[in-house]
């Protein structure tokens, strides 16, 4: 039962407290930590804060010390600000003596300092700001009276490096305020146990879970799939053929969110929509490369209800509620059921009405994926996530932060860290190696002892060697590592590159580096001509060229989920389920069945065939582009060693195609696809892999080997001060067991290379390979082969030649003779 004041307030609003809101208040009364799993629109945030408001209302202001009562952590700054605003209503209407403040990167220095000495009752902040607060010498006083920590959007946080960072912060808070309890707020997840573990200090050698409250689900969403019975593209991700449908869906909605998977898709879709926007509907664009001010403008227009649609990427997966959104359109592959639920949930925040969604597959495989995802969502099944392990780099940052707050005993810090679930199995050796790394670099050759960052005090504690190090820590803290970015500056025609120029946004440095002067690309909704790279940025002019070279920057960040891949494989292997698919897709699969074979559940199909003067080997693991790329690297190494002369490979989300000069049909596939490729072959490939070097760079930056910023030089454009590739080469050559290389290896398992997933796949298909030697290309192979031609001829050959190639390929694949 809620206190009368709160009951009255609910009644005055015409509301009934929901069951899960009451349940959370009960757990709070017993001092228990709890995870609330609820769909969007379930009054989740209020449920999280209600117990704190009740507690604060019952304790008269004067009886309390001025101390922080409740800490709220959101992965998004904008969300923290929005929640603070929303809390004002109940506080004002019930006249509660409660102060609420936010603390973000935008908070003024004066206010930050005041918050440390006189904190509000409720402070709303981000993981990064919390780590900075904890690294301050006043942290112990500031958090001593803490009663509650509320963690919002926990499903988006728990399995990332930021999640690990938060867990280390919670472990520290456990020492500073042993009595506090935690509330996790999460969207629906397949397995809540890791999130429950997240909320609890883990006792040595045991597992401890928080309480769990699952809110009643809302109305099932209505999901349509846009399909055409006459034409479904073979490859590509742009869904140009369906833009009229998308426009019609926008017109029939009050406000629509149009989700795509990459920034280049967002740019392209935005252009396509405007080309057919005869009604001149206000449609805007939102993605991570656009200038901050421009994104804020779009968000503000959205909040005011001035827009009919926003074309966006995952930047709007999370975020503040826009009441007006009543339809979500997802273009391209959904990638995962949970991701789709999250996106659909952005429409209609009323629990009892169904959210409306339209899925727009851009090619045949995506038709299968969209159907599988819709079935999963309607059946209430979600993807699980592989839990990330390791994070020795995040630990290194935490160790330095701990020293910034106060000198520490290694034994005590080790015990504290082990209570955080990602480190429940951390060995003392690894912990000591990390401390040694922070102190002097941790090299076997003890060259840097005299420059140590941490020194031992007489009583055996580690202390910071110099106060300047605390300043450096503050500038470099955080576990989000951006790719090096270059500012895009638009200048007038005919002016020399580098003169003037308005900032349009930022693009990855590696994308800019591969442009030649005169190349055109689409960015910020315009076709731009590259004029040159200068110290101050990349200079561009407006081009009137409709056929721009499309930027491929940051292509699909998220791979197809294991769960959804499984469902797509099942759908393919079960002809009875094909009847719900559009005609061209059914025909495609039927000819595949007739010409080659449809693999049975659990089998991996491998086809070989000649085409032109090349020979191909194509397999269909459906494990996502990252795992396929790693597989491609390893297979080509093995084929090379076996003198089969592979010449190249291409991977997409569903298939991997390798080509070479010789027929690969006679190869012993069981040996080729054996799991032992994850041994020496993997190791020798890693040494040269660019993705692995990028993983190392991230670890080196997070661990503090490379500093992003130096005091006094916070704003100098190119962030990183030293090339991580040079360090990687020397370290791998001279000290291959170094803690940072171990951290990189652990990361690679679940990160950019998806090695763990590849390992699972190889184990799954062992002895279940189905091979077919064909005399020509099979229907299933066409999408992968089209990607090869796209990759090879990009910007070099006329569109016409490409189209001709494509037609010939499809004709050969679908010919029934």
């Amino acid at each position: 039962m809620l206190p009368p004041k709160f009951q009255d307030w609910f009644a005055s609003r015409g509301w009934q407290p929901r069951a899960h809101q009451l349940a959370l208040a009960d757990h709070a009364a017993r001092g228990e930590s709890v995870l609330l799993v609820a769909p969007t629109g379930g009054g989740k945030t209020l449920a999280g804060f209600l117990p704190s408001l009740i507690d604060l209302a019952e304790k008269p202001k004067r009886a309390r010390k001025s101390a922080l009562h409740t800490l709220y952590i959101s992965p998004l700054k904008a969300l923290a600000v929005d929640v603070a605003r929303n809390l004002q209503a109940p506080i004002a209407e019930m006249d509660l003596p409660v102060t609420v403040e936010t603390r973000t990167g935008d908070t003024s220095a004066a206010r930050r300092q005041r918050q440390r000495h006189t904190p509000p009752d409720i402070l709303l902040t981000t993981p990064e700001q919390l780590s900075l607060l904890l690294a301050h010498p006043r942290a112990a006083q500031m958090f001593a009276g803490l009663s509650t920590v509320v963690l919002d959007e926990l499903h988006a946080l728990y399995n990332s490096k930021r999640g690990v960072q938060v867990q280390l912060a919670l472990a520290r808070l456990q020492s500073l305020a042993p009595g506090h309890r935690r509330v996790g707020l999460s969207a629906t997840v397949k397995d809540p146990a890791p999130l429950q573990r997240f909320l609890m200090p883990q006792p040595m050698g045991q597992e401890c879970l928080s309480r769990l409250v699952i809110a009643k689900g809302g109305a099932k969403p209505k999901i349509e799939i846009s399909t055409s019975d006459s034409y479904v593209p073979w490859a590509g991700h742009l869904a140009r053929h369906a833009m009229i449908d998308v426009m019609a869906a926008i017109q029939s909605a009050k406000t629509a969110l149009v989700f795509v998977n990459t920034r280049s898709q967002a740019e392209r879709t935005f252009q396509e929509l405007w080309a057919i926007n005869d009604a001149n509907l206000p449609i805007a664009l939102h993605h991570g490369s656009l200038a901050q001010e421009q994104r804020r403008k779009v968000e503000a227009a959205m909040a005011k209800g001035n827009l009919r649609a926003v074309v966006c990427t995952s930047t709007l997966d999370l975020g503040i509620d826009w009441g007006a959104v009543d339809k979500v359109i997802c273009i391209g592959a959904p990638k995962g059921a949970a991701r789709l639920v999250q996106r659909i949930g952005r429409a209609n925040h009323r629990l009892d009405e169904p959210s409306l969604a339209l899925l727009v597959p851009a090619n045949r495989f995506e038709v299968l994926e969209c159907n599988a995802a819709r079935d999963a969502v309607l059946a209430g099944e979600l993807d699980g996530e592989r839990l990330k392990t390791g994070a020795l780099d995040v630990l290194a940052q935490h160790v330095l932060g701990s020293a910034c707050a106060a000198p520490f005993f290694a034994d005590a810090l080790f015990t504290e860290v082990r209570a955080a679930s990602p480190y429940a199995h951390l060995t003392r050796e690894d912990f000591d190696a990390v401390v040694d790394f922070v102190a002097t670099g941790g090299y076997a050759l003890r060259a840097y002892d005299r420059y140590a960052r941490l020194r031992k005090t007489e009583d055996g504690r580690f202390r910071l060697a110099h106060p300047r190090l605390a300043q450096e820590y503050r500038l470099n803290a955080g576990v989000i590592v951006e790719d090096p970015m270059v500012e895009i500056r638009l200048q007038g025609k005919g002016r020399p590159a580098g003169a003037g120029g308005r900032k349009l946004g930022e693009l990855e440095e590696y994308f800019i580096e591969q442009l030649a002067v005169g190349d055109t690309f689409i960015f910020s909704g315009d076709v731009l001509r590259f004029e040159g790279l200068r110290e101050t940025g990349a200079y561009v002019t407006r081009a009137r060229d409709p056929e721009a070279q499309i930027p491929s920057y940051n292509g699909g960040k998220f791979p197809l989920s294991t769960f959804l891949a499984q469902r797509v494989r099942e759908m393919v292997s079960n002809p009875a389920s094909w009847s719900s698919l559009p005609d061209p897709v059914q025909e495609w699969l039927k000819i595949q069945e007739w010409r080659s074979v449809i693999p049975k559940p659990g089998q991996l199909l491998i086809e070989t065939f000649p085409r032109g003067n090349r020979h191909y080997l194509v397999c269909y693991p459906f494990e996502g582009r990252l795992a396929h790329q790693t597989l491609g690297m390893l297979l080509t190494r093995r084929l090379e060693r076996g003198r089969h002369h592979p010449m190249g490979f291409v991977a997409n989300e569903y298939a991997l195609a390798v080509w070479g000069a010789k027929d690969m049909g006679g190869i012993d596939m069981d040996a080729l696809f054996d799991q032992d490729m994850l041994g020496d072959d993997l190791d020798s490939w890693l040494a040269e892999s660019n993705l692995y070097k990028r993983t190392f760079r991230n670890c080196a930056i997070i661990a503090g080997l490379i500093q992003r910023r130096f005091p006094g030089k916070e704003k100098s454009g190119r962030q990183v001060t030293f090339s991580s590739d040079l360090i990687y080469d020397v370290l791998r050559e001279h000290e291959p067991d170094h803690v940072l290389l171990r951290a990189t290896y652990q990361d690679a398992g679940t990160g950019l290379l998806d090695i763990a997933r590849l390992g699972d796949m190889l184990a799954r298909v062992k002895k279940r390979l189905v091979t077919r030697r064909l005399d020509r290309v099979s229907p299933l192979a066409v999408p992968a082969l089209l990607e090869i031609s796209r990759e090879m001829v990009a910007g070099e050959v006329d569109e016409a030649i490409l189209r001709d190639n494509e037609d010939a390929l499809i004709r050969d694949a679908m010919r029934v003779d």
Partner: protein
Amino acid sequence: MNDLLIKVNGESVLLDACGAAFSPSYSTLMFADLHLEKGSSYARGRQFLPPYDSADTLRRMAQAIARHKPARVVALGDSFHDRDAADRLGVQERILLGELGRAAHFTWIAGNHDPHPPGWLNGEVAAELRLGGLLLRHEPACVPQAGEVAGHLHPCASVAKWGRSVRRRCFVSDGLRLILPSFGAYTGGLDVGDAAFTSLFAGSFHAYMLGTRRVYAMARRIAV
């Protein structure tokens, strides 16, 4: 190794894929910008790069010397990252350096990072060195200078193709003068498109990029 033979001011010079240049006529092997002890220099600012850069650089020098068996080795300046760098060299590195000094006669050209290379090194210290039509010095002169062989600029070039780009250290030459890539393990690079290079050459010039086993002449001459 496949070396590339080019003419600089009429003299033959072999470009080695490791980043060294060899003059067969004068049996002289040239290295630029070794930046020894750059790692420990950063360590003084408490940034702990792996302390193996000097050993790595010296080992690669030893390999190049064993390959070309020169009578003379010239280090084209900035051999030491800072003024105290030589004092910080470890025991192993000193031994390696001693062995190199016995394998060939060394000339240490002074650079801006090491205006006074230490006296205990084998060989001699010089501001510049003339070998027939070649003039070896650290910093290239601002005006065109026939026969000049220099370092200092750490040239790098990148080629883009098929949506990928490869960036490597490179030699730069217009047939009259030659800039060597930096040889030190921790030396980064400056793009040859930078004004620092374009202002050096009266006409166009070539970039010779370092591959794993050979040197690649960049197909397109860079117009100034």
